[in-house]
Each structure stands twice: as C-alpha cells, then as structure tokens.
C-alpha cells in the first residue's frame, strides 16, 4: 500500500519549512448497503483510497480533480468531519484520527473551513453578528462588549461594514455572504483553513475580489490553506503546490508552475488541455486532446491504474499493475507507467505478479 517513502524524500514533504499537516495513506470508503431487513454491505464507494501528502506552514496546497474524484471527501476527512476508514492525519504532530470529539475540540480552533455555497452555509435565522461571533462564544474566548468589538473588527477586515452586525444573511449578495463565511472561519485565528470550492458559486468579477481577500488574509495572519476547486485557473492562481486527484488517488503532485507548465501524468495533460483559452486566436491555434468517455464510478474503479480506461497512452501494463508515485525532482511526483516527456520509471514486479 505504501508508496510514500523513497530515498529522495517523501511526497509528504512540503517545499520548505516543517509540515503543519501530514496525511498518510488516508482512506475513506462509504459502504453500499442492500437488503430490506438486514443491512448487508455489498460494496463500497472508494471516495479516497490511499492518499498521502503534507502541507507546510504558510503554504497553499491546491487540490484539483473532477466531480467524484474525492477532493471534498478528502477535505472533510482531514478535519475529521468524516471519520476516515484508515490512515493517518497529523496536525502539528498530533494524530487526529485517534482523538475523540472532546479531545478534538481545542484543535478545531486551529483548523477552520470555508464552504462552497454561501447560501447554504449560513443559518438564515441568525444575524450576521451571531454567525461570526458564535465560534468565539462557544470557545469561551470573548463575550459581551468585547465580543461585539471583535466581530465588528472581523467584518471590517473582510470588507463588510460593522453596521451589518444586525442584518440577516438574505440581505446579502453571494460575494458578501462568502465574506461572512470567511469572517466566521477567521474568528478563532486558525492556523489552517480548508476552503472547499470557495469561489465556484460566484460571478467572475466577484471571484477575483474574494481570491484577493483570501491572499491578503494569508499574508496578514500567516494562514495555511488547503484549497479545493475544480477550476484550474483559480487553483493555479492561489496555490504554491498542486495535487491532482483522479478517482480517489493523487496522480500528480508538485509545485504549481511545474505541474501546469510540465505536467507528467496524462490525466493532468488532458485536464489542462480541456480548459478552453479565453483568447480566440490562441484557441484556434492550439491542438486540443479531448478525452473520450466518462469518469468511471468510484464504487467500481478500474483495476491497476484507474485512468487506463480513458488514457491515450495506456498499454497492457496499465491494467495489470498499479503505478506508484515517483519523484521526478524538485518535489514533482506522478504515478504513471508512461509519463509525458519523462523517462519511464523502472518497474520492479514481484514474482507473483509476473504473468505466467
């Protein structure tokens, strides 16, 4: 199962500094049940299936992939909002998967989340002041006039007016609501913020405002971000490193510019090629590789390399042996038997795996 260690380092290592978050062999399966009287498990949706990486302090890791690749499940499993099936999540050296609810609570102060849908993630019956102030109250950090002062300070910091304190969420536009969600996440002065598609519900002109805000806040408070998104342009803009997921696995991970300018995994190549360029002349000039078919079901993923059913470079070995993440230098890793523009990795098969 492990693939992480090799002599050149680990996938777990961030570019610089010590890791704040280390995820090792994380697995999250959702059981598929059948039967009316007896809950019989007939299978599992393998949403996250052995993922390892680390995020350094102050770093932004972008997680990209198509719907169903497990990126949101991964984000939730890191925060223990979903209990992982197996594997380890260490935050500042503390193993989170072994902690109970009560033990997790003080740690949750340091790990916050921003959600995709600013309409669904704010309680419509609560006033903004309460939404942003509740985390402070629940953790016993402020009350009374002090609480109000801190909430107003937070609202001001995210670009809202302190007079908004007594308004309800429905009085705000999507972009403003997302600012409220950000203020709430920042209230406890977290170390790490996991943002799950924070701008995909917003219009382009508002997207830029929110991304600029998130970047300013990162500089100001030294935040570490795990940024989950399907929009490759957004992810490239915010990330220091990028992990590309396909059907529950990381297929490529490396420094953002490296992954975008010299992608190694054929899936990353086709993903980048599928994004139309907003420039008619350049769009006409370039050759697009359009992937055929749909993403297979994570309940029944293809054997060995999960991408082999759609991969233009696939050969026999891809359906026989699962490729492991290989280091190509400079912190750039990919799991492929036929990497693009790089020498093929040597495959050591055990005798049992060799075809007769």
């Amino acid at each position, binding site marked *: 199962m492990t693939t992480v260690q090799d002599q050149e380092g680990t996938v777990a290592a961030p570019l610089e500094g010590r890791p704040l978050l280390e995820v090792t062999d994380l697995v999250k399966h959702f059981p598929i049940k059948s039967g009316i009287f007896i809950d019989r498990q007939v299978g599992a949706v393998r949403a996250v299936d052995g993922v390892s990486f680390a995020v350094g302090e102050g770093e932004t890791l972008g997680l990209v992939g198509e719907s169903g690749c497990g990126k949101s499940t991964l984000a939730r499993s890191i925060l223990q909002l979903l209990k992982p099936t197996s594997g380890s999540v260490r935050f500042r050296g503390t193993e989170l998967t072994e902690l109970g609810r009560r033990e997790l609570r003080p740690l949750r102060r340091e790990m916050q989340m921003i959600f995709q849908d600013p309409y669904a993630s704010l309680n419509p019956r609560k006033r903004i002041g309460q939404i942003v102030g509740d985390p402070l109250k629940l953790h016993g950090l402020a009350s009374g006039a002090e609480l109000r002062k801190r909430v107003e300070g937070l609202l001001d910091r995210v670009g809202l007016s302190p007079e908004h304190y007594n308004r309800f969420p429905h009085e705000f536009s999507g972009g403003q609501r997302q600012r409220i969600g950000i203020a709430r996440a920042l209230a406890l002065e977290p170390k790490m913020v996991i943002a799950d598609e924070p701008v995909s519900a917003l219009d382009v002109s508002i997207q*830029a405002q929110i991304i600029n805000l998130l970047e300013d806040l990162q500089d100001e408070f030294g935040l570490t971000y795990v940024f989950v998104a399907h929009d490759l342009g957004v992810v490239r803009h915010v990330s220091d490193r990028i992990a590309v997921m396909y059907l529950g696995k990381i297929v490529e991970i490396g420094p953002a510019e490296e992954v975008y300018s010299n992608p190694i995994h054929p899936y990353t190549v086709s993903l980048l090629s599928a994004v139309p360029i907003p420039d008619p002349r350049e769009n006409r000039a370039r050759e697009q590789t*359009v992937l055929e078919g749909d*993403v297979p079901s994570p309940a029944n993923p293809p054997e060995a390399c999960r991408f082999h059913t759609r991969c233009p470079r696939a050969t026999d070995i891809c359906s026989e042996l699962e490729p492991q993440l290989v280091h190509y230098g400079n912190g750039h890793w990919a799991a492929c038997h036929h990497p693009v523009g790089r020498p093929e990795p040597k495959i050591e098969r055990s005798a049992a795996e060799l075809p007769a």
Partner: protein
Amino acid sequence: MSAPLLSVRDLKVDFRTEDGVVHAVDNVSFDVAPGEVVAVVGESGSGKSVTAMTLMGLTRSPNAEISGQATLGDIDLIRASDEQMRSVRAERLAMIFQDPMTSLNPVYRVGDQIVEVLRAHREIEKEEAHDRAVELLRLVGIPAPAERARAYPHEFSGGMRQRAMIAMALALEPEILIADEPTTALDVTIQAQILRLLKKFNEERDLAVILITHDLGVVADIADRVLVMYGGRVIENGTLDQIFYDPQHPYTWGLLGSVMRLDRPRAARLAQIKGQPPSLLNPPQGCHFRPRCPHEFGKCQEVPGLEARSGESGHLDRCWLNPEQKRNLRVMESGEIGLEAPAA
C-alpha cells in the same frame, strides 16, 4: 451578411414582485444569422436567461410585462398565441438547460421522452419514432444507443444526460438551439466533449446557436458573435475578435481582465471590478455600470444607446466615452485587456 433568422428589437421584460417591479430585461436588441453561434455573456442577474426564456415563451405570466418584438421568419415570438408557440418550440426553436437532471423526467425512459417529442409534433408510428430516437442518441454520441434508450435518466452520467437533452432538442430539426449554460454543471473534460458536439451540429447542419454562458473560455472556443449583458441591457455586441481584441465597454474590459488564464504567467494579484452588480429592482440612473466604473463622467447619468461607436461595422456598444478615449483608458498588458492593472 444574409438576412437574420431571428431579429429581436427593444425587448423589455418586467416582473411585478412583492418588493416592486424587477426590470429583468431592458431594451434588448440583437440579430441571429442562419448558422451563427451567438454567445450571450454576463453575470447572474444580467438578464441573459430571462431573454432566452422569453424567446421561448416561457416567461409569460400574469405578473410579467413583456414588450418589443422578436421575429422568427413570419412569427413574432412575443405576440404569438400559446398554440403557435407550441409548434414553434422544438420545431423551429429549441432549448437546453444547465441542469440536465432536472430537465429530464425521472420516471420515463430516455428513449420514450424523445419519442414523445416526435409524436407530439409529427404523425408517425410508435416504432418509427423509436427508431428515430435511437438514431438521434447515436448522433449525439451515446454508446449502444438502442440499449441506452431504455435507460432512465438517473442511469446516465451528467455528460450523457446533456447529450440526451441535445438529442431531444434536435429531434425536430429546429433552426435555432438556445443553450443556457449547457456545460456549467459538467467537468472540463466532459465540457470539451459537449462543445465539440455543438460545433459539429453547427457546422454540419447549419444550426444557429444562442449560447448563454459566463465562461469566456467557452465563448472563445465556439462563438461567432458575442453579446455582453449587464443589468438587463446589452452593453456591447460584436464579433468574437472585436469583443476580445477591441472591447469598447469598460465592463467588458473588467470581465476580460478578471479571467484567470492558464496560458499566461500568473499575475501577482488579480484585477477586480470593485463593488456589486446592480439591483434590478432599483437600478442606477443612466448607465447601469456607472457606480462601478472608474471612468464615469457627467454624461453617464443619461442612458447611452446601443450604437456603433468604434467605427467597425457590426460592433455596437453602450458607453459614452469616445473610441479614442477608450483605447487610451483600457489597460493593455502583454496582449491582455483589462479595466485595471493587477497590482504587483
């Protein structure tokens, strides 16, 4: 240019609501030529979907006030009776939507839903209609179409559902297909497949397409002409190259400038348009973009007409600045055009 297939003039749609009158579409005029792909871009609330739905006759209601003309051949889509509209829909003008799951009936087989469309409009036998449905599914690239015609919508993936919607929309060979954000709910690799499919029908059958989208990448990929909408109005109308390389309206500059491009080195900081889109209940006086525009001046209190100002034929805009000023004011950086320069 050949005579337009569809000609929309001074289209206005107001909705009476509890909070007041929403001016959803305000004096929209444009033409669609045969075989042309017209992209309508704009943010949510800019009126692009209401425009499209009004053309289909789907916004008619006691609380809606619709005026203006929309001529398709000899029919005015605004004044046509409900019965006339029923025959126009699907036969001459068809529409596909953003979310293919909610547009398909979950309790009928996909093939039967296409058969229903065919038999509602044509006098054909069930079996013949079924064969035709299978043929249509094959045309839109659904593997094993005879088998898949018997499947229910939930058994299809998002991309396949959108293909089925396209098959249904094209069943009666309409002249115009209105596609409202057809790829927004789909992944990029599937989006590329659907766009390729639309292009194929556009080229092979001369199908005109009105494509509503907020994604300028999709526009650059497929459109011939672009309408930019803001606050219920068309604020710029030009060919693909005019809009991308010589945009006239400051809002268009802002839109082009705030796109995160994969083919360019990443900017230290994104250019952004300040402020919020206007409320359509109580829009600003004069130019709707005025409160967010860094170049507004006295005259902007008056509504600018949609006129040819750039000196190029077929390029219309609603901005009082003269073309010279515009070319000086917009920010040009390494071939990109924007409203403001991204700060370092």
